[in-house]
């Protein structure tokens, strides 16, 4: 197999007393769409800044294209297209000036592709960036991030606060990037529906710790939602192996668990309970289950 495009091992980062990243280890396979989820402040942007080489690893190791992004920023950044939540664009420039200016940094800039995207996004080349709407700014940022056909497209909360049409443009760009010569996309989002649509790998950060990481299909196949009805009311939550979260009271309890499909009989016989409902947990349920309380890391890789 190909070696991973991004390889992070035991990355830890502290800001004063706060641990922003705690022993994070993950690999992003070439040609994948890797979705990073986590609530605000979970450490997503901090992780991305390490991938970009903006911050040096305090402890642990970060490699992008098998290079150290801090030691070799030119080689690494030249192959990355980056779009942040609020693209930092020079307000006083016109659209065409900004594109010409950005082009100077990238030897592999594809002017025909830029023109194609500019027309598709309906961006006026003579408009001042100052007068662009939030959606138009995002499109311009996306255009500049893609123009050199980067090997790695890195998107930090790209669709936060945007209307559905611009969000679709961003998702189309993600899909086009991977169908095109198997390039790689890494993007963070708190919109689980987006992650679930386009990702094939996901990682979940919770308070700086990686609580979940693996192929999306595996993650979904391993997590089940089971609703139990007990013969007698219980004062404490039932114990089911691999439990991530339990909710309920009295006779009815719902368990989100991470294990190979537990047989109906095993649970029912052991617990004097009947399974009233069982099914695959949605990513949203899995996310809430892990974000509910701190839990040890689980790897599915």
């Amino acid at each position, binding site marked *: 197999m190909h070696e991973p495009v991004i390889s992070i091992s035991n990355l830890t980062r502290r800001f004063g007393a706060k641990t922003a990243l705690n022993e994070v280890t993950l690999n992003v396979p070439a040609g994948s*769409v890797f979705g990073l989820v986590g609530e605000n402040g979970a450490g997503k942007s901090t992780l991305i800044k390490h991938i970009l080489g903006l911050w040096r690893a305090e402890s642990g190791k970060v490699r992008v294209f098998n290079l150290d992004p801090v030691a070799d920023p030119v080689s690494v950044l030249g192959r990355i297209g980056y779009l942040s939540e609020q693209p930092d664009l020079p307000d006083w420039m016109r659209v065409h000036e900004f594109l010409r200016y950005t082009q100077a940094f990238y030897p592999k800039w594809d002017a025909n592709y830029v023109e194609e995207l500019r027309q598709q996004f309906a961006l006026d080349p003579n408009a001042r960036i100052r007068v662009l709407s939030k959606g138009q700014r995002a499109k311009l940022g996306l255009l500049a991030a893609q123009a050199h056909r980067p090997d790695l497209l890195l998107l930090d909360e790209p669709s936060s606060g945007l209307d559905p049409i611009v969000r679709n443009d961003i998702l189309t760009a993600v899909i086009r990037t991977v169908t095109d010569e198997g390039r790689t996309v890494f993007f963070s989002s708190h919109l689980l529906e987006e992650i679930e649509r386009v990702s*094939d790998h996901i990682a979940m950060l919770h308070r700086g710790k990686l609580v979940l990481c693996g192929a999306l299909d595996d993650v979904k196949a391993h997590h089940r939602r089971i609703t139990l009805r007990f013969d007698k009311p219980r004062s404490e939550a039932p114990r089911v192996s691999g439990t991530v979260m339990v909710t309920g009271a009295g006779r009815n309890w719902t368990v989100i668990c991470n294990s190979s499909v537990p047989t109906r009989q095993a649970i029912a016989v052991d617990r004097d309970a009947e399974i009233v409902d069982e099914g695959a947990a949605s990513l949203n349920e899995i996310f809430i289950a892990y974000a509910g309380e701190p839990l040890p890391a689980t790897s599915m890789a």
Partner: protein
Amino acid sequence: MTIRVNPASGVPLYLQLIEQLKLAIETGAIRAGEQLPSIREMAEELLINPNTVVRAYRDLETEGIIALRHGAGAFVCASVVPRAKLMNKAQAVVQSAMDQLASLDLTEDEIRRLVENELGGRRSRKPVRKKYA
């Protein structure tokens, strides 16, 4: 042919795509010999990961419903007998049942669970469990 997938449901996207394509073929919306959209077209149309489309197409190929011709695309196999009349009749039954359920103010997820549960119950009463065996 209108294909829609819903990422928020617990059902994996590739299975949703398989079910939708099967339905389109069974109802005659896509006929034998016709070409399916390319992997890229389908992925961009539905805004889903291209690998999801690949997986769905491969599974349909294994089931003998479509044929993947290298470089040319995916075609619906001639051997697939459309059960159009039957399926259209069944679709009407499902539609009226759904209307009744919806009037009871049930959510989509609740309806799906009821249907799954009913199918599961029937399966477990039969000696051979086809789907999960």
